[in-house]
């Protein structure tokens, strides 16, 4: 298969789409230089900008509430990449390495740290080559096109297969959106509030047979408990505070 050819065709299609969109839309989605309390440990500023833009398309802010960017998913990914996950601490790393079949799973010699570093640089370079803009500067629809092309393997990468990077990014984004806030994502328990997940569980013995009754509890995180912000029972389970329903 002609990877270069398919890359050119893809970039052409994004270019055409980009030209059809008003420049204002792109500006609107440019990274806001808001003050952040997070201290990044692995990601470089350009990588933070890329991920802020990409995760905001994977789980966008909309009428349902904030999205992955607002939930701190970029910072979550930074912390994961700096820790054991990022260096494949519990994974088998010995060679020889071969691509293998899809059924054989992760076979890259690169760690997640290296995968992110290489893939982000390649994606930004590809975007810049086509229209002189990095990924974060593209309009939202163009950003989605790039993500879709990665997902479908039509935006070829050198370091790893494009699908491989896309799946890793999507998986980490979902982790960062729904994991306990102690990891730096799911800020304000945005993800849990979206779906109605109460987080750290209370004792549900007397509730499990209340069939079909909504359980509208204020979610409790591990961080809440460590900070003494949640009342606990004798086993350390939080006592959930139920929200008053308006209907």
């Amino acid at each position: 298969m002609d990877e270069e050819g398919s890359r050119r065709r893809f970039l052409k299609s994004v270019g055409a789409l980009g030209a059809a969109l008003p420049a204002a839309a792109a500006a609107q989605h440019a990274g806001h230089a808001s003050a952040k309390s997070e201290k990044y440990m692995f990601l470089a500023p350009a990588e933070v900008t890329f991920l802020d833009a990409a995760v905001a398309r994977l789980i966008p802010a909309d009428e349902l509430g904030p999205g992955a960017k607002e939930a701190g998913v970029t910072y979550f990914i930074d912390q994961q990449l700096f820790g054991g996950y990022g260096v494949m601490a519990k994974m088998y790393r010995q060679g020889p390495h071969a691509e293998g079949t899809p059924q054989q799973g992760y076979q890259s010699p690169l760690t997640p740290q290296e995968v992110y570093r290489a893939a982000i640089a390649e994606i930004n370079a590809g975007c810049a080559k086509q229209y002189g803009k990095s990924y974060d500067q593209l309009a939202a629809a163009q950003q989605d096109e790039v993500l879709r092309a990665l997902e479908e393997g039509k935006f070829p990468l050198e370091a790893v297969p494009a699908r491989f990077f896309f799946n890793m990014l999507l998986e980490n984004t979902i982790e960062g959106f729904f994991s306990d806030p102690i990891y730096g994502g799911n800020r304000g328990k945005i993800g849990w509030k979206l779906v109605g997940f109460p987080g750290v569980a209370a004792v549900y013995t007397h509730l499990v047979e209340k069939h079909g009754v909504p359980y509208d509890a204020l979610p409790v995180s591990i961080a809440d408990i460590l900070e003494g912000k949640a009342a606990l029972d004798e086993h350390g389970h939080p006592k959930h505070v139920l929200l008053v329903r308006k209907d």
Partner: protein
Amino acid sequence: MATKLKPVDAVVVGVGLSGSILAKELAEAGLHVVGLERGRWRDTDPDFAMPHAHDELRYVKRHELMQDLSRETITFRNNTNETALPMRSLGSFRPGEGVGGAAVHWGGLTWRFLPWDFETRSRTLARYGSDHWPAECTSQDWGVTYDELEPHFDRFEYLYGVSGKAGNIKGKIIPGGNPYEGPRAREYPNPALKTAYAGALFKEAAEKLGYKPFPTPSAANSQPYTNEYGATINGCVYCGYCQFFGCEMGAKASPQTAVLPNLMKQSRFELRTRANVVKVNLDSAKKRAVSVTYIDSRGREFEQPADLVLLTSYVFNNVRLMLLSGIGKPYDPAANSGVVGRNYAYQTPSGVTLFFEDKVFNQFMAAGGLGMTIDEFNGDNFDHAGLGFIGGGFFQAATSGSRPIEVRPVPRGTPRWGAQWKHAVAKYFNRSFPITIQGACQSYRTNYLDLDPAYRDAYGLPLLRMTFDRHENEHKMSVWITNKAAEIGKAIGPSKMTVSPRTEKYTIVPYQSTHNTGGAAMGAEPATSAVNKYLQSWDVPNVFVVGASAFPQNGGYNPTGTVGALTFHALQAIKTRYVKRPGPLA
């Protein structure tokens, strides 16, 4: 150079579900027993303490309680035409590591395999004839029957405080239980768990269709319970952090809650953790094990002499140690000879997901094995004539814990990301539930375990190589029984339903189940089994290999109850016969 240690009567390799029971019983019977465990000591406090016990990322995605693949993994390929490559990250299955093994993070479903499961080959041939037998299928009779195992199922269920409802007591069918189960001596030790909304809807629909639903038997104890070892297991609080987690309540039965409090008080038992056994040493005639060699956390090598060697680690390590040590003849698929590594099998999970617009299920209020089951389409409980397959599986409306990183079902056709995905997740996270099917998996000439020629572990020893794919029998079975589950799903009345039979090529990537079986299969014939009906090596009779490694094929249930029964079955033979007169028992 290995340091040679003082001889003991018995050495137990792997202190998990089987190892903990055997060590306790044999120490109490007067043997000096050493337990060698490659992982670390783990207990309810502090290892599974609140609030960190409820951390989905840590336990489900970062595999806190599971095998560290950086030191040892397996290699995998679908067939012999491919080159096996290492499983670099955990996916399809999640073996444990450390004291308690996978029985720390198991889901708690505690089944007895059907009488048919133990006589798969002879009963199939008798009922349907040899034309019905799947091509290349090497499934066989176990050499032991359900009736022989019944007292041992009973003992294990009472040790682990299993919660359930009997369906057949001494041949009498009991309403509310499983009418298809083999006869049992008595009721379960604990009443069934409560019924969640999903289970209640499933029960109603299944009854209307003429089926006999019953509560899934679970080792999440429904009330505080004290077992024969004097250990007290607490009552489940339905927190929903069960499978893949340690239980902060000590309510899910495990070696930690049911056995270790007693075992650790046994004066003739010694536990050595971070002791990785790399070889069972045989005498020059290869007929007797004389010792095991292990390496500790400082890299020191020790030789532990013992009269009796019990291999009780996970399926893969039981088989690998046999291969590394030269215990039994390795299986050769080309010649169809040899036995060690033969009859590796797995599971054929499938299911149906139901979506609703107006009902909420609070599936996060859950327990391992909380659910309602029907068994009409398991084993040979239904007529297979003309269907073109053997086997089946149980169907369960499962309420085993919905945590949003891993469990966030959306209807088929929903994009994987973006605004539409977000809307679907927000809407259906609490408005959906699954009917899961634990489909059986037969064994085949082409599916086996051996030593990998290229990849090595941290000690420089060959990794175990898995060659595996499901066959046409499993795909046909999965399609047929999953459609049956869909009929029940439809009767419940969801707005949308996703039907997912298992028909694709086996992949090691997405999680399916930690139900790997076989490789050291039991049987009545040394030509087709690695161990006899007492789980004793045919070739080296002072070695017993205990665990799901002995299953000649896998049934349509979770395996743990049957592993527990085999453990007590082997124990009885060792205690009452072998210890008095060491030698071959069959």
